[in-house]
């Protein structure tokens, strides 16, 4: 972690309306070395009874990560690049506080390991200047990892947004969601 080739001009852009539910990202995520070959990305139906729409969710890497704050064991840390890392295996006590407090529903409690695991933006790859596995295989580009210039060229009618409103709480993140042009935030409630 000390010496890296992390590219600070590269960002993650998510557009869940583009998700076709192919789960290629799930397969690719399981290739990530830092996950110990467990898939950490979420692909699920939004409301299966009325629509076949699926949604995809990676860790949003919050600027002020609730998961890290509610962790009673200080097992989750955020590095200088803003990447919120998965639980420190030595410290995590498997309480699931992070799983239930994350406003995006990202961390996973692996019951068999009695430990939380989550997406850490393929740190083995991004720290070497490469793209996260999921973004390299997404066929519909619901997941895109690149520069702001690239995304603005590709999506001229969209704006990356990284501010989310959950009732009284505003959450800002490192990962962006592609919204209609001119949007400043996404209000969930």
């Amino acid at each position, binding site marked *: *972690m*000390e010496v890296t080739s992390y590219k600070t001009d590269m960002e993650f852009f998510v557009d*869940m*309306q*583009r998700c076709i539910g192919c789960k290629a990202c799930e397969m690719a995520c399981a290739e990530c*070395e*830092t*996950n*110990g070959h467990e898939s950490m990305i*979420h692909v*699920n*139906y*939004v*409301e299966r009874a009325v629509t076949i*729409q699926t*949604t995809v969710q990676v860790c949003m890497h919050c600027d002020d990560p*609730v998961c890290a*704050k*509610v962790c*009673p*064991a*200080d097992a989750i840390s955020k590095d200088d690049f803003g990447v919120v*890392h998965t639980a420190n*295996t*030595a*410290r995590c*006590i*498997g*309480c*699931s*506080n992070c*799983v*239930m*407090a994350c*406003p*995006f*529903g*990202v*961390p996973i409690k692996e019951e068999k*390991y*009695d*430990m939380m695991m989550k997406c*850490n933006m393929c*740190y*083995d790859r991004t*720290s*070497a200047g490469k793209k996260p596995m999921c973004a390299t295989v997404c066929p519909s580009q619901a997941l895109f990892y690149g520069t702001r210039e690239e995304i603005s060229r590709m*999506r001229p*009618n*969209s704006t990356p947004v990284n501010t989310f409103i*959950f*009732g*009284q*709480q505003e959450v800002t993140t490192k990962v962006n969601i592609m*919204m*209609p042009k001119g*949007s400043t935030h*996404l209000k*969930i*409630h």
Partner: protein
Amino acid sequence: MYFSLNKKAAFIAIVVTLFCVIVSFYGSRKLQNFDPALIAYLFGTLFAVFGVIYRYCVWLQRPPTRMYFRRTWQLIFTGRFFVHAYTLLIDSIKNLLFQHFIYPRGKKRWLAHFMLATGCLAAFAITIPLTLGWINFTLDPATALDPGAIKLYNANFFGFKVMSFELGSVLAFLIFHALTWCSWLVIAGAVIFLVRRLTNAGLIASQTFEGDLLPLILLIFIAVTGLGLNFSYAFMKGIAYDFMSVTHAISVILFLVWIPFGKFFHIIQRPAQIGAHIYKQEGKKKGMAVCPHTGKEFTTQLHVDDLKIVTKQLGFDFTLEDGTSHLDYSPEGKRSLLAKAHLKARQEGGTFFG
């Protein structure tokens, strides 16, 4: 660098350290049984006691830790004490002594951790009471004076005899070399972990030298210099014993001083896992929370309610306009709500893609 002294934690740590000094003073029969050769280790141990208690108290003051700590003891002492005591005992044997939770993560990993942990904990159990003068060994006076008798050695705890064994017996060999066995366990476990950390791509990307590699190197160094002491007097007629004893003492004291600050603190934190198990077990009996989106149970209602309190204490407020909370939703529900909000925004924008 920002530093602030946590007065409450410092007070408790000082009291516990002083208590330890008093117990050692009287436990060693007013220093009569205290081994002066261990004086440097004594100060290292007392510093470690102070540091560990200080950090533990600071740690317990964090809102989520405080909540779990309080709830665990509340749940244990509000009825069904013996049921919880039994859970506590079984869970401690399973997860603290045998570290069963590591087994599904990898058999080799479990074996390495088991050897490392057993070696370290056994060494703690032997050296700390020795250093503090709680345990000492004496030659049995009756057999010592009789030239024809088999010499007996007494092991004393707080000056009281607890067992005797014959000098030169198998038991004596095992007892006198107890730290040697610990050293081999530590070396075997630490080497497996070191190889793993040097070859696993995921670990290479996320580990730090001081946080992950140095603790293993230090443990190996302690174990090797400790074995060197034994090797020196058993096979080298005492040659290099002074060098070995000094390097061993330095490495052990570094280890003791580092316990409160670095990776070794997880040894102190680990019992909290049992608290989390009891919390979950008792929470289930009180009732499960049902996600308003998925309609499925996802965690205990106690957990959701406590998280609402803890997040507010930490400066987050997920309260919604209708008085409910975003935390009432399951992880899957939260992801779906985000997707629905995104869809709505796209619909209002006039196009699904842009």
